[in-house]
C-alpha cells in the first residue's frame, strides 16, 4: 500500500464480517501483538493486524484482493495472544468465507451455503434427486450397490448426475480462482507482473502443500497440521479411488459405459479384478484415514476452543460433511458386506454427503484449497513468500 490510498469505509461490510463469524472484530485496538506472534506471516507488512483494521473500516476491495487472507492458516496464535479477545484468527476465517462468496458464481449459492437457514434446502436437492432415481426402494436379493439397472437407481442416471455436479463445481471454482487472481494482480506494477514465473511458483507451492510446511509452524494449535495432513491425503486417496472406479465402470466388458454405448472394449476379467482390488485397498485406507483425520480435527478444535475459538458455522458445516461422508461411506460398506438391508438408506445418505461436497464445493469451505493454493502461488510469484 504505497502511495495514497483512498479509504471507502463500508459499514455494511463491517456488519457482514461480524455476522460471518467475526463478531470479535471490533475489539481489536491495533496493538499488533497478532502480527508479532504469527509464525506464518511474511515479515514485510505482516498480517493479520492490517486485515483487522481493513475489516474494521469495511474496506472490502482491499481485503478481497489481498493474498494474505489466504496465507493465514488460522493457527490461532494471534487469537491466543490477543490482549483484547479480538480473535484475529476467527475474523480472518470470516473474511475468507466472504472471499469465497465474493468470487464464486453464482453468488446466491454462496449465500445459501453460508447461512444455516438454507441448510435444509441444500440437503433437499440431493435427497430429491436420489429419491427421483428410485432410492426409496429396497430390492430383494443380496445387498449390492451400483448395478446398472438395479434396484437402487440407475447407474446411468447417478453417475452423470454426480459427474455434472463435479464439472459444475470445477468450472465455478476455475472462474472464481481466475477472478481472484485478476483482483490480486490488478495492483501489480507492470514490471513485476512481467517477472512472474508461474511454473516455478506452482511447483514450490505444491511441494509446500504436500509437506504442509507452513501449517507446521502453528504453535497454539499444534497437531492441527497432522490432522489436516491425514484428511488431505485421504482426500487424494479417495480422489484416486474415484478415478479408478470410474475407469472400471467405463471399461467393464458387459456393463461398462462403453459397452452400454455399443463400443465394448476387450479387456480381461483379471485386469478388472486387479483394478478393483487396488482401488478398494486405496479407498478403504483413505476412508479410515479420513475418519481418523476428521476426528482429530474435531478434537483439536474442542481442545483449543478456549485459546483459539471453536470456529464458525461455516467451519463446522464443512467438518460435518467430511465426517458424515467418511462415516456413512464406511458404514454402508460394512452393512453391505454383512448383507444387511439398512446398507441401502445408509448409502443414500452417503451419496447425499458426496453430492453436497461436490456440488457446493465452490461455496463451502471446500473451496479453501483452491483459493489458498492460488494465493500461495501468487505470493510466491510476487516475492511475498
Amino acid at each position: 500500500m504505497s502511495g495514497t490510498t483512498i479509504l471507502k469505509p463500508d459499514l455494511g461490510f463491517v456488519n457482514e464480517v461480524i455476522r460471518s463469524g467475526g463478531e470479535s472484530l471490533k475489539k481489536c485496538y491495533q496493538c499488533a501483538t497478532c502480527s508479532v506472534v504469527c509464525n506464518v506471516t511474511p515479515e514485510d507488512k505482516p498480517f493479520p493486524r492490517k486485515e483487522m483494521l481493513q475489516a474494521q473500516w469495511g474496506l472490502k476491495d482491499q481485503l478481497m484482493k489481498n493474498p494474505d487472507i489466504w496465507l493465514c492458516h488460522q493457527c490461532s496464535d494471534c487469537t491466543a495472544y490477543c490482549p483484547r479477545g479480538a480473535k484475529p484468527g476467527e475474523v480472518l476465517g470470516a473474511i475468507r468465507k466472504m472471499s469465497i462468496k465474493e468470487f464464486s458464481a453464482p453468488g446466491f449459492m454462496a449465500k445459501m451455503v453460508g447461512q444455516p437457514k438454507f441448510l435444509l434446502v441444500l440437503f433437499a436437492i440431493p435427497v430429491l434427486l436420489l429419491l427421483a432415481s428410485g432410492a426409496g426402494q429396497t430390492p430383494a436379493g443380496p445387498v449390492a450397490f451400483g448395478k446398472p439397472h438395479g434396484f437402487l437407481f440407475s447407474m446411468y442416471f447417478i453417475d452423470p448426475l454426480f459427474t455434472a455436479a463435479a464439472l459444475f463445481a470445477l468450472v465455478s471454482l476455475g472462474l472464481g480462482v481466475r477472478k481472484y487472481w485478476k483482483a490480486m494482480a490488478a495492483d501489480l506494477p507492470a514490471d513485476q507482473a512481467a517477472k512472474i514465473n508461474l511454473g516455478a511458483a506452482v511447483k514450490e507451492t505444491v511441494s509446500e502443500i504436500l509437506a504442509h510446511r507452513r501449517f507446521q509452524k502453528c504453535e497454539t494449535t499444534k497437531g492441527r497440521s497432522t490432522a489436516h495432513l491425514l484428511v488431505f491425503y485421504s482426500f487424494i486417496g479417495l480422489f484416486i479411488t474415484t478415478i479408478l472406479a470410474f475407469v472400471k465402470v467405463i471399461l467393464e466388458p458387459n456393463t461398462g459405459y462403453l459397452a452400454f454405448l455399443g463400443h465394448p472394449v476387450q479387456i480381461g476379467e483379471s485386469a478388472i479384478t486387479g483394478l478393483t482390488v487396488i482401488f478398494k485397498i486405496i479407498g478403504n485406507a483413505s476412508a479410515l484415514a479420513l475418519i481418523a483425520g476428521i476426528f482429530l480435527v474435531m478434537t483439536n478444535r474442542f481442545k483449543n476452543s478456549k485459546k483459539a475459538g471453536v470456529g464458525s458455522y461455516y467451519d463446522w458445516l464443512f467438518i460435518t460433511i467430511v465426517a458424515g461422508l467418511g462415516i456413512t461411506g464406511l458404514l454402508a460398506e460394512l452393512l453391505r458386506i454383512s448383507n444387511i438391508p439398512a446398507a441401502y438408506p445408509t448409502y443414500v445418505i452417503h451419496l447425499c454427503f458426496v453430492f453436497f461436497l461436490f456440488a457446493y464445493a465452490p461455496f463451502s469451505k471446500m473451496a479453501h484449497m483452491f483459493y489458498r493454493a492460488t494465493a500461495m502461488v501468487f505470493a510466491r510469484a510476487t516475492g511475498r513468500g
Partner: protein
Amino acid sequence: MEKKYGVYICKGCGIGESLNVDKVIDSVVSNTRFAKDKIKTHGVLCSPEGIAMIREDIKNEGVNALNICACSQRAKYEEFDFPGCVMVRTNLREMVVWSQEPGNEQTGAIAADYVGMGIIKMQKAELPEPGILENLNKTILVIGGGTAGLTAALEASAAGYEVAIVEKEAVLGGMAIKNFKALPSEYPFKELQALPVLEKIKKAESNPKIKIFKSTTVEKIDGQPGLYDVTLKTPAGEEALKAGAIVLAAGYKPYDATKLGKLGYGLPNVVTSTEFEEIAKKGGIKRPLDGKPAKKVAFIQCAGSRDPEHLPYCSHTCCMGSLKQAKYVREADPEAVAMILYKDIRTPGQSELFYMNMQNDPGVMLTKGEVKQVTQGVGGNLMIEAENTLFGGSVKIEADMVVLATGIVPATAGPQAYLDGLAKAAGKGDAEKAKFIEETPKPQFILNLGYRQGPEIPSMEGAFGFADSNFLCFQYETRRTGIYAAGCVRQPMTEAEAEADAAGAAMKAIQCMEHVAKGIAVHPRAWDQTYPDPLMARCTSCKRCTEECPFGAIDEDAKGTPFYKINRCRRCGTCMGACPERIVSFKDFNVDLIGSMIKSVDIPEDGIRVIVLACENDAYPALDTVGIRRQQKLNPAIRVIPVRCLGSTNLVWVADAFSRGVDGLLLLGCKFGEDYQCHFVKGSELANYRFSKVQETLNRLQLEAERCQMMEVGIDDYNKLPEKINQFVKKIEDEIGPNPFKGF
C-alpha cells in the same frame, strides 16, 4: 522569658552501647562550658518513665528549654511534646550511632559536636508565639461557576463555610453546560448521561451559604489569607467583599481554531468539538452548510494539542470527548459512521471501559494518523489527507463533516503570557515597555491581585500557562498562599476529575483559613508557629526579599520599604537567606543561630571537617534513611545542620564556616528546574544562584571555590548519598587540602 535549660540524652536504640555517654558529656561540658548537672541521661527517654523525668524537671525545676538528644526530629514528635518549652532535638540515633562505627572515639566526638550544637540552638532559640491577625474572615471566594467552581462551593458549604461564587458569564455551568450530553460516570460506562452540572447549579442556587454573582468579574484583590479585600465588578456596579481564601476555578477556553486552517477550519462543515455540541443539542447531526443529516463524520484528534506549533501538551479530554460525540453520530443515525483519526487514544482509568464500548460499535472507525490537511471536496464534503496511518501509509478519506477536537487553553494562559511579555519588554527599557503596552491587547485578568510580584498567578516553566504548582505533593497549591486552583485552569481534566479536584481545593482553602486563625503556617510547615520577624530599623530597602520570595508574601510601601503579609508566608526563610543585612529572623531559626552552631563545631588540627547544610524536606530525611537502613556509613568528617529550605541559606554562614577553619561546605537541597522538587518552589534554585556568586568571593579570599558545593538530592537518593559525600570529602583531603585559616 528567662530560660532554664535541660539536656536529656537517651541511651536507648543502641545509643548507650555505641557511645560512652559519660565521655560524651565530659567533652560537651569542656567544649561548651555548659553546666554538667543540667545534663541527664535515661535508658529509654521516650518511655513513660523518661517522659515523666522531663515533665518533673519542667514542673519542679522550671526547666523551659530542652535539648532532647535521642532520635531524629522526624521521629517520636508526639512523645517529645512539651508545650511552653523551647524544643531542640539532637539526632544521635540516625545521624550518629546508626550511621557511624560503634564504640569508636571519633563517633563520641561526633556525638559531642551534635549535642553541643543542640545546646547552642537551645540557648539562642526563643519560644514561638503564634502570630494571629485580627478580624479574620472565613468566606471562600470561588472564581468560576463551572463544574469545578460549583463543586468547590458545594463542598465548602457542606463543611459549614460561606462561599461567594463569581461567574463572568450570565449563566452558571461553565463549559460543561455547553454540552449536549455528559460522559458516563458509572459502570458499565456505556450510556451517556444528562448533564450533572445542571444538578449542581440547582443545588448551589438554592444553598443559603452560597452567594452567586453572575456576569461579574474580579476587579481587585488586596490583602492576604483570612483578610482578602475583594472588589467585584457586577452589572450593578462595584461591590466589596471580604474573603478568607480563594478557589481559582476559572476554567478554560477551547484552542483558537482559526489557527487550524490546515485542518480545514474555515471550510463549510468543519467545526470544533464545542460547536459540534451545539449542533447535537439542536437534535440530529445536521451539517451546518445545508442542514443535511451527516452520514460520515470524521473526528480529528489533537487539533492543536501535542503540537509544538500550537499547544505542546495533551489536552486530556478530547479523546473521550470525540468518542462521546461519535456516539451522538451513531445514535442520531444507525447508518452513519464516525471516523476518528488520532495520535494516540488516551483514555486512562475507567475511561478505558467507555473507549472499549465505543470501539465495539461497528460504525465507529478508528485509525492512528497525522492529518496533513483537510480540503474542500464535492458537494460540501471534505477530503482528509493523513500520513503514517495504521493502514501503512498515507490515506485520503472523504467525510461529509469534520470535527476538530480542539484542546484546552487555561484561563490563566492569556494573562500570564501578557505579563511575561511585559516583564521581558520592561527589562529592555521603558521605551520597549511602552511599546509593548501599546501594541499588545491586554487580556482579561482573573485575580487582579494587589501584590508586589504581580496581579496574577506567576507563570512557571513546564506549566504551559496553567495555574499548577507542577508538583505532585501539593497539587492545588498555587504560588500564592490562600489561592487554590481547581479544574481545567490547573490541568486539563474531565468533569469527573474536576469534581475531585474542586473538593481537594476547597479542603485546602479551609485548611488555609483555619491555620491562619491559629497563627500557624498554612503549608507545608503546617505546624509552624514561627514567622519571619525582620528588624526593620536596619532595612536598606534593597528589595531582594520582595523579589525572591517564592510566594509573593512581601509587599512594599510607597517608599519601597518591604513589609510582610504574614498570612501569605510559608516560613521557608528564603527572605532570611536573601537579606544582605541579615535582619530577618524566626524565633528558632535565624542567621546568628545557625552561624553560632557552625562556629561551635570542633575543628580538628589534622583532619578534615565538612559542614553539611541539609534541606529538612528531602536531604535530611535521606540522611536519616541512611541510618535507618544501617547498610552504609556516613563520612565521619561531616556535621549536618538541617535548614528549612536551602533558600534560607545566608551567605554569611560561608564566611562563618571558613573563617573558623572548616575545610568544606556542602549544601544538600532539592532538585530545581522544570521538574523541581523544592517544597518552596524556588528555594534550591535561588540557593544555587547565590552560591554561584559566593565562589567568586572565595576565590578572592584565596580559598578554592570547590570547597563549597551544592548537590541536588532527592528523598530517594539515600543509597547514593553516602558515596557522594565521601567523594566530596576525599576531594578536599586529596586535591584541595586543609583550610589555610585553620588554627587562626
